[in-house]
């Protein structure tokens, strides 16, 4: 028990209680994120129901390779994050494993953003930005891309926040500023990271797969 007192914060007297509160608190926050992104999904759903053809046509213009590679990257980052989180909870002194997995998670997150950057550049070159210079014929196809930019943008913001959190953990752990074993912050960050992954899991079929079968 004494190894964990360095992590004890106000107003807690018992570390176990603090850990419980941290885990519970992040799950409650994740519930709010479910409604946040869920509202975006609803917007997409309503717009798609009301414009089926346009969404199929517009969906075909997305780059399925960038999308699929990014999904694979993010799923792998969930693997490394889960490893880091579970290794920390195991309390077995797996310091190098935890640090490497945290670093890998951040690196994979960055890789996602880099691929996204290339994708955005290509989208701009193809004039897939709604407005007067929109590249596709039907005006209603702009709606799909309006949603595309907003949804991927909001997701990227969340991912960036996640990357910052993971990098912070990696640095603090590497520099021995806090212990890694049983560190509740790693678990909390992990849960947030997995949510960002889950959001993308749902975005993938909505953005990249419409219209492929025709």
């Amino acid at each position: 028990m004494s190894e964990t007192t360095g992590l004890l914060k106000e107003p807690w007297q018992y570390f176990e209680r603090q850990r419980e509160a941290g885990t519970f608190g992040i799950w409650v926050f994740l519930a709010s994120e479910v409604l946040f992104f869920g509202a975006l999904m609803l917007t997409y759903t309503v717009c798609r129901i009301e414009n089926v053809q346009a969404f199929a046509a517009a969906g075909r213009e997305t780059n399925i390779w960038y999308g699929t590679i990014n999904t694979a990257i993010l799923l792998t980052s969930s693997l490394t994050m889960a490893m880091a989180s579970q290794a920390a909870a195991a309390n077995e002194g797996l310091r190098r494993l935890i640090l490497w997995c945290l670093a890998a998670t951040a690196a994979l997150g960055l890789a996602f953003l880099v691929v996204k950057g290339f994708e955005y550049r290509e989208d701009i070159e193809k004039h897939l930005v709604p407005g007067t210079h929109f590249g596709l014929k039907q005006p209603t196809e702009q709606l799909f891309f309006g949603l595309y930019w907003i949804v991927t943008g909001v997701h990227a913001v969340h991912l960036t926040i996640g990357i910052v959190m993971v990098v912070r953990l990696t640095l603090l752990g590497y520099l021995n500023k806090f212990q890694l074993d049983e560190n509740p912050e790693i678990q909390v960050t992990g849960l947030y990271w997995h949510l960002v992954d889950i959001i993308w899991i749902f975005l993938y079929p909505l953005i990249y797969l419409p219209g492929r079968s025709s």
Partner: protein
Amino acid sequence: MNTHNTHSRTIAWKLWRRNGLIWAALMLLLTLTLVFAYVPMGLVTPAAGIVIAFVKAGLVILLFMELAKARPLIRLAAMAGVVFLAVLFALTLADVLSRLAGR
């Protein structure tokens, strides 16, 4: 010291194996969803994409996020988000779909 090392190495290997299997399943599902998207099955095509997404999300939430092992209070918090999202979808779509049907 040696036994400690071997012990922690065993734990690490167990973690890799468990999580690696889940990752492999996720990759397989990703491939499936990509393939299905190109098969013309009418309304089933987009539905398949969504269903597979739910399965992938389920794996992440139950196994990576360990919701399956979490205490009931945590599961209640997770459920609350999903339930109220379902309400948002259901009642909004009740309006949208009945308006479309009326057109």
